[in-house]
Every structure is written in structure tokens, then in C-alpha cells.
């Protein structure tokens, strides 16, 4: 299938394909999250449900270590200016 037949004409079409699917979102501030995408707009504002957010916390010190904090939310509005990447979750 070429691009036109698969309906991909602009980047947002790729995101559209992921509607109501689980997506992986990388955010500024060393944050990542996965959740089911319910809506998005041109600013990449996202609405996600069943979100698990992963926050990388770099501990300053002699030996910089990275600790990971996670939290879960049922429903989340993600402001688009923090979004770096949206992708389908890696399938194993």
C-alpha cells in the first residue's frame, strides 16, 4: 500500500490512526507516558485515559543517578507544548 491508499497525507494522520489506541508519549521534562488516546488537536494537545506516567528524576551528586517515578491517572489532558513524540507503543 502506498501513502495515498493508506490514507497518510500529513503527520497528524498518523496520530489519527492511533485514536482510541494505546500510545506512547514523550514529553519535555524527562517524562513519558502511555495511555489510550482519545482526542488530539493541532497543538498536539492530547486527551489520554488509563495513563501511566514515568518521570525520570536525575539525582545530582558525585554519581548522578536516575530514579524513576511512576504514577497512574484515569484521564489526562496533556498540553501540546510539552509533547515531543507520539507513537504507538512498541509491540513485543
Amino acid at each position, binding site marked *: *500500500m502506498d*501513502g*495515498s*491508499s*493508506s*490514507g*497518510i*497525507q500529513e503527520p*497528524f*494522520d498518523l496520530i*489519527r*490512526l*492511533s*485514536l*482510541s*489506541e*494505546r500510545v506512547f508519549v514523550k514529553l519535555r521534562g524527562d517524562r513519558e507516558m*502511555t495511555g489510550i488516546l482519545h482526542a488530539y488537536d493541532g497543538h498536539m494537545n492530547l486527551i489520554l485515559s*488509563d495513563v*501511566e506516567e514515568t518521570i525520570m528524576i536525575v539525582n545530582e551528586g558525585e554519581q548522578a543517578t536516575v530514579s524513576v517515578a511512576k504514577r497512574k491517572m484515569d484521564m489526562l489532558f496533556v498540553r501540546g507544548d510539552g509533547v515531543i513524540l507520539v507513537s*504507538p507503543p512498541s*509491540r513485543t
Partner: protein
Amino acid sequence: MSFFGFEERTLERGRDRRLGQNEDLAVYTWGEENHDGLGDALQEDHDDLNDETFGEVGEVGKDFDFSNPTLLDRNDYARSANTRVEDKHPQSCMIAFSSLNPISTPLTLESIWDDKSLFSMRLNSANRTPSSSLLPRGESPAISSQHRQQSGIRTVQEIEAEMRASADHSRQEALLQHRQQQYYLEQRMQQQQQKQRDEEELLLRQEEEREFQRQRLLFQQEQAQLQRLQQQQQLLQQREQHQHRRTPPPRMLPVSQSPRFMEHQQRQILILQQQQEQQQLFRLQQLQEQLRVEELERQLRSQHISSVPPDRQPSGPTLADMEALQHQQLQQQFRQRSQSPAARPGPHRPAPLENSIPYLPQNLQLQQRLLSEMAQAELLREMQEGLQVEAMRKILEAEKMEEKRRKKAAKIAHMASLFFFWISRYNDLMTQSDKDFITRIQVSQLVSQDPYADDFYAQVYGAIVRSRMGLSADDERVLKFGSSGGVALGAPTKGGNRRPNAMQRMQQQVERIVSNARKREEEKGLHSLHSLQGALGKTSGRSYKAAPRQLLQVDPNIAPSSSPTLSHAQPHAHISKVDSITKSSNVAAANAARMGRETLNIGDNASSQLNSKLLSSGDLVYMEPLTQREILVTLENMYDLVLSVEQLRRDQPHPEEGEEILEQWSKDFDSLVDQMWTLLKVMLPLATSTPHPFISLLSAAKGKKILPRVTRHFDQQRMNTLLTLLIACFSQLDVISHAALLDTLEDTPKRADVERQTQAFLSSVLQSILPIIVKGNLRLVCGLVGLLIHGQDIIAIAQSRPGLALLTLFLTRVEVIKQGEVDEIPTQDDFAQWQLMFDHLFQLLTPEFPLLFPSTRMATHLPRDQPHINIPGIDSLDQPVWQFLAALALQASSTQHQILVSSLREKVLDNVLSAKKGWVVDEEERTTKLANVDLFLHALGLDSSQITM
């Protein structure tokens, strides 16, 4: 109101006299019996000061003047002849104070004195004389002559006669006045002041007398100089008056040496006092009484007053007083500063005057009254020309009104100009076409190709609200323009008449604008699409070549011809490129066509058709299973189609709209439905891929969710085909293949996902096929069960919630058929075939009965040492299994019952034991356990209570 012991006189009486009932006012009757004695009541003590002013030095004379001395009379002339030397200094200094010619009209006080305005007007009018105040003395003959012309009411001869008469009685009057003053003062003043004042009065009286004599002398002198001098005098007086009017609020100032000043000051204080004590009525009475007595004196003193043109009459005595007060104040200030020797009185006078200052309030009242009466008397004299005066008064009033009105109008105009300054500044900056242009832009933002979809949620909500309110639900709140545009109006608003009206107006307006815009668009014709081309100027041919070669050939005009409501203007419409997808599916066109022909008859002999389908793998075109991305793309296309179809259904024309429209509509609709059917890939051969493309589409949650929305547009045949395919490929479904994950206890994201998918399948997919199964006949059910058994892992299916639900559905349907509650009575062959199928199913499931329970399966994952751990909600998970077993038991023979009971004895006993021994968390769990068991046992004709531990 004989306040001071004098005869009480009414206001009316005084007024009558003033109004000239007795025309012969020039005849003075001092001391005679018919004399009204007004003068007796006169409080003369302050007139002494007047005498001082006018009598002592001729220069000071009568230039205390509250009125406009424009009248050409001899008294004036005589006085001015005396004053011309000494007046010079103070008045020229006063010029410095005056800069403007203000108009002060305390109109609020007017009403009090309305009736007596005739005499008070005299005083006032002097102050109101405009212009010339800034002019030096004698330098504006033009203006002064103007004043003369204005004052042409009385002839010189008349004035002369009056003057003569008054001169005769001057001495007599002065004496009388003195007596009265003393008497009055005794009553009113404190004893300490009495002596001083007496002295003062005496002095004043002497001066007065002297002045009278002098005036009389001067009267016959210097006729040639009369005019010029009078002009000068007038000018100076006017200047003074205008200056004085501009002074700050009244205040008590140090003593002035000028008698004239004193008089003014006293008067000022008096005014204040009177106003505070509200003694105006009383004063009026007194004034009237004194009026007649004082006529002569007043005449002499206020010749200039009488010369005021009647048409410039002011409003009332209070007004006059106020202005005089201001006048006086300014003069006072002036005196303080200048200390002019000319302004200084004689050496004998200052002391008593200064002493009397602190007691002014009482003293001044008298003087004030005297002054007022002077004006009044003069007015009475003018009553000789009563008619003329009346007419003049009317004219004056009219003029005053006119002036007021003009002023008001000017003020309003001024205010208005200020008020509208900013607004008017930008008025009419925009032309009508500018405004129209902006309106068009705004409206064009409102108009959309698919107003209903743009306003979807509001529309649906509105429909719900309307249906709740019992209104017709087909009223869309959408404003349509022809076939391709409209404005969404949102949900209906409740109540209020204004909103609907505004809405209607807006509708009309928008409709008009849009139709205009469309007309314009049509005029542009085909060029409309490229109307903006070259709008920014032509690009050179060179730049075209220099531009990078276009790798992607994207034609924005590609749109599904059958979905007019969804154009390329919509952001995602290009995904709905059904054409290309149709093309791709045409790869298997031959196969699909053949298979389609076969499946059309599936309703009659399901199993044979399906068998032929399954066996028709000879010319099968094998394909790779759909990739995840292909699934998603297809689903997006499907959503677009579904939305189009749903919109088309809403746009379904009424039958009366015409045959062609209806035909066209159904053609469009069928076309869309065909596209959906093709897109679902149901017609692909079963063995095309594993999983089947249709099953792959159902692997996504949104694929499951869209199925009910798709299938409701399919007819029975297509639904049968779809159901057959689904059952035939049931074990390929993700919810079946991943069902084992649900039996695990740990909470992983994957398990959550499977749970989500399972819920979606149960609520969406099964819901969409439920109507067909419920309506299906025994042969169909039999065929479907056969499909489920053949070649598929029935155990895995049965151990999944969707599979178990499906099996339960089949069994229930058969039971319903067996109850005879259907139209189509199945044949004996059908029953036989079903029995075969059921036995086979039962046989397959028998070893797995305990494992059908999620609780049992979960228990295998539990640690060995604690197999009886309680899993929350496990009983509700088991419930569908009990239901299935009950349904199975209903169909089963007695032999099969035995097998069932023996297989499930342990499970039943376990549950009953838990419930009865209290191995439960709460009462609810116990009830659930028992209910579950009973569900099954009742199907066997047993009950949990029969079981004894």
C-alpha cells in the same frame, strides 16, 4: 408682623402702590395724613452711611451705584461732576481687578422675590450691564452712548421734575429718617452700640443733607459737560460692578474707610443674616412701608439706578443683594490694598464707623433695607410709565427666557460635542461595503459544509433534550443553505422570546449573506477555485523550475463522490479514500464475487454454504494478515464512511420531495453501504489469511466498537454472511486467543488491555449479532454451532467469556425454539440435526466442565499452599458459567445430567459449603454463591437446600 412696633403693612399693599395704582407718584406727601408712613418704619441708621456716601463729599456721591447709571439725568450729571476728581483714583485701580464680564444669576433666589422684582431689578440690572468694564474712563463714548440709548424710557424733563420735587422735600425727609432710625436702633441694638451709632448717624445725616444741597447746586450747572461726565461715571461704575461680581465668597474684612464701602459691607452681612433667619417677608413689609417716605431721598441717591433701561431688569432683590455683596467685597479688597487717599473719608468719620463694624449685623440690616427701598422707590416712580414698564417687563422676561434658553442650548450643544467627541471622531470611517465585508468574513466562519457534524454534540444533546420534553426529535437545529453548507445553531434554548427572535433574525441575515456570497461565487464560475491564484503577483517561470520537484502528487480534489457532505475541506477526509482501497481489494475481486454469490443464499442452508465456502480454497488468493497499520487505516476509513452514511440517513428526503431525489438518495446510500461492506472484507475467503482480515479489524477496540454502527445498515443477507464469518473465525479473535491472560492474577497492562477488549467485544460485537441469533431459526443456530465446533478450539472458546456468552446465546435460542415461541416451526430433521450437534458439543466440553469456571482456572495460578484464597468478585465472574451450564442442562438428556452433576459436584459442594459454613467475606458473597449454584441446580430440578453437609 409689626416686628418693630410699627404699623403692620402687608406686602400686597406695598405692591399695589408700586404697581402704579396711584399714578401720581411724583407727588410726595411727607407728613400729610394720607401719607402711608412707610418712611416711619424705615430703619434709617444705615442710610446714614448712605448720606455719608452721597452727601459728604460730592465725589463719592452716588457712585455706590448698584444700577446702571446710563440714564441721562441731571442728578447723575451733578453727582458725576463732583465725583470726577476723586473717583478717578479708586476706580482706575479697580480696573486691575476686572478681567471678564461674568454673569452671575442666582436664579434660585429669584422665586422668593418674584413679586417684588420690579424694584429689585433696578439694583441688579446695574451689575448686569455688560461690556465696557475694562474700558478706561471716558474712553468709550460709543458704549456709553449705547447705554444712553438703552435708557430712553424717561425723558429728561420728567427726571428734572422729579428731582425738583425731591429736592424740596429732602431736608424734611432727612429729619424724619433720622428720627426713625434712632427709634429703630434703640429697639434693636445693644446698649453699648447705641451711643456710637447715634453719633455716626448724626454725622451721616449731616453729610446727606450737605450732599442734597450740593446736588441741587450742581443741578443747574455745566449742562454742556453733563453728557461726557455721565458717561465717565457710568463707565467707572460698571467697571466696579463687574469687578466686584468676580470676587470670592463673602467674608468679613477689616474696616474700610470708605462710607460707600461700609454700606456695601453692611449690606452683605445683612443679606447673610436675613437669609439665615428667613426674615425676607418681614423685611419686605418694612420696605414697603418705608418706601413712600423715602421716595425723595432715594430719587436723589439713585438717579443712576432709575436710568437703567427697564429691559435689563434682573430677577429679584436677593439677586441684587448678592451681587452687591460681591461688589462690596471686591471694593473692600481694593480699598485695603490701595489705601487711596481719595477713598479715605474725612478725619471725623473713620472712628465711629470702625467701632460699629462688629455690630454690623443689626446696623446693616437697616441700611440694607434703605438701599433696597431706594431701588423700590425709584421703581415706583417709574410706575408713572406703568404701562410702558409692564410691557418692558414682559419683554424683559421674554428676553430673559430667551437668553436662558439660548444659554441652555449652547451648553447642551457644547456638552454634546464633548460627549460625542471620541465617537464622532471615528464616525463613518468604514463604508457600508467595509462593514459588509467584515460581516461576510464572520459569517463565512460560521458556515460549514457539514453543519450537523460540526455541531454534532450540541445537536445530539438537543435531540435528547427535545425527546425528553416530548417534542419531535427530527428538528435539527441546523441552518441549511442548499445542499452544501449551513450554520450550526447549537442546542435549542429553553424559554424566552428574545432569543428565538434574535435567532430568527440571525438566520435571515445569514441566509441573505450566504446567498449573496453564493451568487458571487457562481458569477466567478470555474475560476472560483483558483480565485486566489496570482493574487500576490505572478511568480516568474524561472522560480517554477527552480522549485524542488514534487515527489508527492497529492490531489486535494479527490473526494469520495458518494459522500458529498464530507468534502476535502474537512481535516481527515482524505483518509476516506475508498476508491483506492476498493482498488486494493479488487485484487481478490474474482474470489469475492464468487464467494458473495454463494453467501447470498446462506440463510437457507447455512452449513452447506459454509461448507462449500470452507472447501472453496482451491482458487484461494492467499494474503498476509493485515498489519496493525492497515487495520487502523481501514478503520479510519470505515469511520468516515459510517459518519457519511449516518449523515445521509439524517438527510433522507421526504417522499413528497419527488421520486428522483428519493432515488438519488437511495442510490447514494446504497453506494455508501456497499463501500462499508467491501471495507469490512467480509467477502474475502475464509482461508485468505489467519486471522481473517475481518477478524483483524475486530482486534482493535475501535473496530469492535464500530461494528454495531456498521451492521445496522446491512440487510439480513449481509448480516447472515457476516455472522457466519465471525463464527467460523471465532477462535481467531483476540478476545479468545488472549482470554487466558484474564485468568492470571497479576495486574499487568496487557491483562488490562485484554479486559478492555473483552468488554468492548461483549458490548459491541455480540450486541450487533445478537438480533440475528435471536431471530434465527434452528437450522441457522445448528449451522453456527457446527461452525464453532468444526476446526476450532471449542475448549478455548468455551473458556473465554465471549465464547461462553455466544454458546449460551445459542442454547437459549434453541430452548426458545423448542418452547414453540417462534413463527417458523422447525422440522424434525432440524431437531435431529441439532441433537447431533448438541451431543457433540457436550461431549467435547465434558472433560473441561470444571475448568470453565474462571475461579477454577485462577486457582491453578494460586500458590499451592493456599488454594482457597478468596478472589474478590470471583463469583460474579463465575456467574456466566453457571448460566451456561444451566442452559446446557436444559438441553441435556438425563444421562448428560448425570455427567454434569458428577463433573460439577465438587464445585457445587464447594460453593454450598462456603456459603453455609460462613467461609465468605460477607452476606452478599454468600448469596451470590448460593444463587449461582441454584441457577445450575434449578435447571436440573434440584436446589441448594437439598444438599446436606
